[in-house]
């Protein structure tokens, strides 16, 4: 899936300009960066699929692996939603629109789009891990692609209304009749008229059928822990349960030896794995 050929140096980032910064939450520690390639040739040559990630590069600080939040159907730019966590993401959060950063991408394997074709798809996301699931949803509901998939169900939750990503877009999704969208928060506020409750409970309540369906899950470990039993109860096979993992990385291309779980490298064999694949790996993630 890595589109770096022999003539290019896989450690060199593409220069991109920050075109727009959207502050996603009240705590202001989640921002979405819309970036565009400086070189139009790069824009043309760049192809990714939902689920793949990038190493974002802040010269002088380092690199950090971030999922690509935009769908390949959104041409001409890439989206990255980044939580301010450490040195590199902290630096990124300090930058203003117009600044140039580096991007090494696309890295890793995508969600199994081809296997999802003709199937019902359930998307379960929690917190700021919703980014590549946003890319996946956006990709599937695109006019030219929508007919390729059966019923699409999106269940997305965050701690509070303010912590929900892509708020405007979620409203659009809720209004669509070719997409079942369930947004939930752990605890609402005085203005919140929507659903309250944890993601696993909402999934159990919505109870999407596992027949002819795949389910893609991404969220904090605690959510995954309580969601997997529900998924099992709903009858999804481990091979139809898709997860996306996080791991500390450096090279992103299977050399530096940092992100392995057993013999699998999250950077090149993942970050997307089926539960079936994860079940045979050592419990070390």
């Amino acid at each position, binding site marked *: 899936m890595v589109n770096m050929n*022999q003539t290019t140096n896989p450690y*060199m980032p593409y*220069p991109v300009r920050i075109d727009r910064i959207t502050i996603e939450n009240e705590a202001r520690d989640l921002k979405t960066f819309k970036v565009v390639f400086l070189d139009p040739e790069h824009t043309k040559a760049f192809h990714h699929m939902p689920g793949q990630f990038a190493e974002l590069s802040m010269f002088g600080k380092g690199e950090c692996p971030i999922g690509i939040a935009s769908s390949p159907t959104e041409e001409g730019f890439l989206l990255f939603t980044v939580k301010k966590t450490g040195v590199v993401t902290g630096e990124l959060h300090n930058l203003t629109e117009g600044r140039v950063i580096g991007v090494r991408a696309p890295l890793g394997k995508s969600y199994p789009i081809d296997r999802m074709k003709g199937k019902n798809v359930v998307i379960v996301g929690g917190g700021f891990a919703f980014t590549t699931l946003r890319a996946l949803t956006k990709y599937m509901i695109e006019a030219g692609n929508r007919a390729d998939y059966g019923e699409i169900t999106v269940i997305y939750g965050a701690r509070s209304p303010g912590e929900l990503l892509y708020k405007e877009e979620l409203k659009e999704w809720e209004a669509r009749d070719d997409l079942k969208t369930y947004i939930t928060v752990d605890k609402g506020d005085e203005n919140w008229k929507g659903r309250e409750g944890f993601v696993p409970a909402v999934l159990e309540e919505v109870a999407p059928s596992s027949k002819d369906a795949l389910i893609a899950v991404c969220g904090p470990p605690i959510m995954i822990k309580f969601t997997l039993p529900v998924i099992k109860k709903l009858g999804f096979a481990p091979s139809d349960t898709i997860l996306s993992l996080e*791991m500390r990385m450096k090279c992103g291309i299977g*050399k530096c*030896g940092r992100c392995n779980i057993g013999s699998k490298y999250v950077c*090149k064999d993942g970050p997307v794995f089926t539960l079936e694949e994860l079940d045979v790996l050592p419990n070390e993630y």
Partner: protein
Amino acid sequence: MLEITLDKSKVQEFLRLLGQNRRLFAPVKDRMGTTFSEVVDPSLVCLDGLNTNLSPKEVVFPQWETLYTFEEDQANEVKLVAQETLLFGARPCDARALELLDRVFTWERIDDPYYLHRREKTCVVALACNTPGEACFCSSVGGSPVGEVGADVLAFDLGEQLYLRALTERGEALLNEASALTEKATEEDKRAVQQAAAEAEKQLQPIPIPKDLAALKESFDAEIWENLGQKCLGCGTCAYVCPTCHCFDITDETKKGVGRRVRSWDSCAFSLFTLHGSGHNPRITQAARYRQRVLHKFLYCPENFGEAFCVGCGRCITNCPAGLDLRAVLERLASLAKVG
């Protein structure tokens, strides 16, 4: 292939000649024994020491190297130009380690240009071990004290002279450059080499190596790791001296907006190695980290590359400040496998 002999009195001249138009790396005496260094004065080369302190992997995979430089927002590629290099006197275990490293740095057709640009220009003259060392166990992990894998030329010390056999075209071309100093090997020389090889191999006692990968997988939750983890200091010495350890870090060094992105050797023994930005650490204990090192070599690499990433050089054994002996660990794992 070409087989020649070189009188030992001519080794310096031989190296001086071959070093004229290439970089020469060979074992040189230092306070601690011998170590691979770039040789300017061939009289300092010491071929009597067995394994060098550090393996010669740094000739192709330096401890520290610049990936590229940057100035503010602008990254500048470093031109990758390597000089022809002669790695002379690497032991067969170290030569074989290079062949294993090649697999990582070309894995799944993603080529690492930094490693490869040096590796492609490196000619390896391996020196067979007449008398393997106390911590050596190459023959137990698929190697041999007289092994040829990874080498362009294999040399034997026959006392008064060196015998050199070309194994590749590059090796043959190298030997031809110095033909004025060498003689064609006689039948007697070849017999002597055969005898030396047989004797060298006889001296190594086989040690048990866990080869049942399913059983090794089962060992993940075994108590042995807890016990070993308590002894391991997490100093990373084993990784630094290991000829096949290849994990690296990438960091930025900068001063007033001008700087470079560098990669440097790293070790899975370090507690920060897998620490996430969120604070989560999948290998929170030293036991988990020690297990990673051993299983990476003897389980994950066999699964990914078909071979264990250990060439039996014994450096991790002789250098471990906590006295951890990999051979004993392997023996325990092998017995676990039998019981399980």
